[in-house]
């Protein structure tokens, strides 16, 4: 069962990268809420991990870094949310200096979700960058800063 689930995760990831580095979704275990338990305080969408990395391997960031050579070809922003109380969206806003270059929408599903966005880099992109990770309302979870170099 778990094998099948892992395969579906990989497919999902490939699908996301294929479509213009658009948000990729990463399903999580299907833990279900227990019925009849005393009412708990409402859960809040929480960002547990956000890193800039060179690539992903088995849905884990590879070579977490703040410097990306143009020769590398792409930059990946990996984020993990836990918990995800309900189906929602987050945004990865890519800025070069203070200019917005890409705004990517990622869908998150309960109970926890990991996703990433990826952009291609070229010589024109050399300079300081940042990615603002925001919720659907634009509230910033975190800002990741990095540089694209020669």
């Amino acid at each position, binding site marked *: 069962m778990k094998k099948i689930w892992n395969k579906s995760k990989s497919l999902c990831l490939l699908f996301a990268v294929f479509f213009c580095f658009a948000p990729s979704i990463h399903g999580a275990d299907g833990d279900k809420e227990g019925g009849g338990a005393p009412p708990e305080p409402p859960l809040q969408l929480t960002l547990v991990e956000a890193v800039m990395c*060179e690539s992903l391997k088995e849905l884990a960031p590879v070579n*977490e870094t703040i*410097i990306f*050579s143009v020769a590398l070809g792409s930059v990946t922003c990996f984020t993990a949310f836990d918990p995800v109380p309900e189906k929602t969206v987050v945004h990865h806003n890519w*800025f070069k200096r203070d200019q917005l270059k890409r705004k990517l929408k990622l869908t998150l599903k309960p109970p926890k979700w990991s996703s990433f966005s990826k952009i291609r880099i070229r010589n024109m992109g050399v300079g*300081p960058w*940042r990615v603002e990770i925001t919720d659907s309302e634009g509230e910033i979870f975190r800002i990741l*800063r990095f*540089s694209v*170099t020669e």
Partner: protein
Amino acid sequence: MLQKLLIFISSIRWQDFIDIAFNSYILFRLYALFRGTDAFRVLVGIAFFWILQRLAVSLGLILTSWMMEGIIAVAALIVIVVFRNEIRSVFRARNIWAILWGLPRRPLKTPVEIITESVFNLAKRRVGALIVLPGKEDLEEFVQQGIPWDGRASTEMIESIFWPNNPVHDGAAIIAEDRVVQVGVILPLSHRKDFPSAYGTRHRAAAGLSETTDAMVIVVSEERGSITITRGFDVLAIDGKRQLVEALREHLGIRTNQRRFLKRRKIELRMAALVSLLIVSGVWFSISRGLDAIKTFDIPVEYANQKPGMELLNTSATSVRLFLQGSRALLKSIRPEQIRVKMDLDKAVEGTNTFAITNNNLSIPPGLSLKEVRPMVVDVNLDTRSKKTLPIQADWVGKLPSDLVLVRAKIKPSKVELSGPKTILEGMRTLYTTSIPLNNIKGSGKTDVKLVIPSAFLNLEAGFKETVEVAYEASKRE
């Protein structure tokens, strides 16, 4: 024609009348104070040369105009140096009111008859005497050891001064107007080689003073009882009273018909006032209303009176080109520093303000008018001052060694507070460091880098430095 005249008259401002009247009066006063002096005659000569020079310029005689200019410059210098005594005596002899306003008063009549009578009495008794009658020049520099006397001249007094038992008899007495001013005065000796040997030291002293000044000196010989006068380089023996009286009158400028003389002088002064007015008016019209010309000036725009807390961000023009119209002579003499373009920002608001440049914004020398201004309007961008805290981001450049990965960097302090125009700060989200080269990085470390403040209008708030510390963590590539 009449219309032209009316337009011309209406274009004259009240300031122009004051300008002409004031300068005419100065010219008239100079005439009144210096008339009859050698300095005045030289000044007239200089004025003549100036007219010639202007004429030469208008005729295009380049060499002549240059030569005239040179002569005028040298002559002006010579007047000050050579006639310094005359100039000094004019300004010292009268009080400031007399210089500025009072008409040259009629000098007190020098008692020619008293002097003549005294001189002949002294000669008869063979009492030696030296009497100095100053001209217009100040004698102070040329005489020595004079004792102030200041007594009204009378036959008895003059004779008693030179009486052999009088302690002051052995010098000259200076008689100015109707008073004996000084006695016992030592005069400079003449060094002339052709001076007649018959004359003694007293005569040589008399000649010495008259040669160097415009004074006339009367000498009474002790040995021969003869009377001699010296004036300039002339030494003249006096045979009779009439001859001395005439010589004295000529020297003192005393006319026989005083009433006629006064009337003539009144007319002369009125004529002088009129001529001064005409000359100044002529010069004024030639300068301010002469041949019209247009000249362009690039003048920086001054912005003033902006509201407190407002900051001038930028303007569409830092200078404007003014096309000024006026006489060629006036335009030629104008320097750009004499022209100002001032924009009053008192009513300006935050954002872009457009101001038209009008005569109200200009300060131009009188006699000139604004023909055109480019640009006609200026946009002024004003902003209020505010503060903002910004995170700092490192600006890495170059190539990191291929086996290394820069995992993270920590900047200390991570944020700084900036103050500056609101609109600039609003658009800023991050403050960047200067470029940090990656090429030399071998592992983890730290470096001090400067911040890049993107606008001259921005300042770091107190407590924040322009340099920050960047600590970086490097690891081996997987």
